[in-house]
């Protein structure tokens, strides 16, 4: 069998992530520390886990309605209203998905026609480009700048728009940079999009994790509600990555099309997870608060120490990543990560993995224990001292 011939060419064309090799190496190390995986280190709060378990005890093991349980959608409606002043009708504007990832996939597939362009600001999470390609579209990568705190500016957006532009992906708060878009930043973006047919896929999975200021959704900006597909979920806010619980909110006609795709591809999101999610929405606000404060402590610690030891780090105001600049070491981000891992047994991710604009930076996730962060900082300090000594010798 010639599988290369048989298998879909477009899918074969998508490159697998080159990052895995680092983790295979890390696995074999005894006292390796991983700041690589973008996932809360918290276990899902017990009352939420218990709600999932209790639903199983009661025998709730069947499919739910395609869009998700009515009670859950009502909870999501009230949550979005209470936390972000967003108004979506649980009856026909909210679809419960298998993680935020499914929601992004659905959003791109209901919008993109062959040849349509999707503007993907980078560095950003890796899924938008490949999912656009699967949907037959063309990703147009827009490189964000550190001097703008990795925000998207109106000028950059205007320059990227062509007559084929169908979608703008807006991934804020940002993985990997920690950058956020405030109300004024979004107003400027809205000004460019007003009067166009360009739709925004706003991936707000880190909306609950902002520090010092509250998250604003672009759907809140005048004239943007009708142009926005809002993606969110429980993974980051409630430490529920493994439950695979996300949701998407949009104008009625958009959700109607997405529901069809979801119905045929997925049926319904996992029932146990939906019961847990109801509890998370109903009684989980204090958990969010608690975890945010913890992350914030670690964020301060890491940013301060990275700057202290000479890796300049712009202050991330969202998500749980720092994205220090490593150019001063003279290494590429991949070389830096490889050597740091081999010499000091700490895994961080090269910025280049997150698309154009990521080179020269590395991503470290601070959703790790304080002990691990302390140890990682101390190893990083050693790594830099040794590196500079070696480089000094080479110069002589």
């Amino acid at each position, binding site marked *: 069998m010639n599988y290369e011939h048989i298998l879909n060419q477009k899918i074969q064309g998508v490159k697998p*992530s080159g990052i895995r090799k680092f983790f295979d190496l890390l696995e074999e190390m005894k006292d390796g520390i991983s700041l690589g995986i*973008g996932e809360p280190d918290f276990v899902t709060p017990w009352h939420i886990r218990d709600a999932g378990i209790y639903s199983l005890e009661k025998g709730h093991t069947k499919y739910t309605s395609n869009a998700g349980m009515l009670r859950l959608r009502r909870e999501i409606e009230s949550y979005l209203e209470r936390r972000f002043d967003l108004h979506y009708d649980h009856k026909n504007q909210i679809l419960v998905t298998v993680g935020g990832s499914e929601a992004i996939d659905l959003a791109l597939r209901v919008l993109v026609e062959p040849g349509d362009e999707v503007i993907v600001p980078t560095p950003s*999470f890796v899924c938008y480009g490949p999912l656009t390609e699967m949907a037959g579209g063309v990703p147009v990568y827009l490189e964000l700048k550190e001097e703008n705190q990795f925000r998207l500016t109106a000028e950059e957006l205007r320059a990227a728009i062509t007559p084929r532009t169908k979608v703008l992906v807006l991934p804020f708060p940002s*993985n990997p940079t920690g950058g956020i878009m405030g109300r004024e930043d979004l107003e400027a973006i809205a000004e460019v999009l007003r009067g166009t047919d360009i739709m925004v896929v706003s991936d707000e999975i880190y909306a609950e994790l902002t520090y010092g200021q509250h998250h604003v959704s672009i759907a809140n900006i005048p004239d943007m509600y009708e142009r926005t597909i809002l993606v969110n979920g429980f993974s980051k806010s409630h430490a529920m990555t493994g439950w695979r619980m996300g949701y998407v909110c949009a104008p009625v006609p958009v959700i109607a099309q997405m529901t069809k795709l979801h119905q045929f591809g997925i049926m319904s999101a996992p029932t146990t997870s939906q019961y847990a999610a109801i509890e998370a929405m109903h009684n989980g606000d204090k958990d969010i608060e608690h975890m945010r*404060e913890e992350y*914030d402590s670690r964020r301060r*610690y890491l940013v301060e120490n990275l700057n202290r030891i000479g890796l300049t780090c712009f202050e991330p105001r969202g998500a749980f990543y720092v994205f220090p600049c490593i150019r001063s070491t003279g290494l590429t981000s991949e070389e830096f990560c490889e050597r740091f891992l081999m010499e000091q047994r700490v895994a961080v991710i090269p910025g280049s*993995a997150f698309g154009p604009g990521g080179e020269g930076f590395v991503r470290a996730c601070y959703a790790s224990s304080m002990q691990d962060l*302390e140890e990682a900082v101390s190893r990083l300090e050693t790594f830099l001292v040794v590196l500079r000594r070696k480089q000094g010798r080479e110069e002589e």
Partner: protein
Amino acid sequence: MNSLLELLEQDCAQSPAQLAAQAGMAEEEVRAEVRALERKGVILGYQAVVDWSKVRDEGVTALIEVKVTPQDLAGYDRIAQRIYQYDEVESVYLMSGTFDLTVIISGRTLKEVAMFVSERLAPLEGVTGTATHFILKKYKENHLVFQPGEPEEREFVFS
């Protein structure tokens, strides 16, 4: 933001520099604040939570319910004071409910603890009854779990 006290309660072994970064304070402020809190008696001390079962076989801890004849608060304070003077006594609390004081004591053997109760505690003036419960196994203390669950597989996922 977590306050300095909350951070210390979680882990008092952190350096002033680490505490400062997390609490959003200057290192010198942290030192001064800690000194002030110690002076005011807000911070009573710093102790390690030890899993003694890992290092020695002997040693017992008991929780003793103590009933005393009804009295005013000063009367309870007096009795509590006479109890907590003993070194063996780890903790003493005034309780609501069916008994009045909880006394937690540690000793080398069951017999040692039992003797303490019968010879020191029970004869105290005002004490009308005791019930001794030996702690057989500790699961969690001060938010710390004694036998952490199995390490979770953290397989690589690019997220």
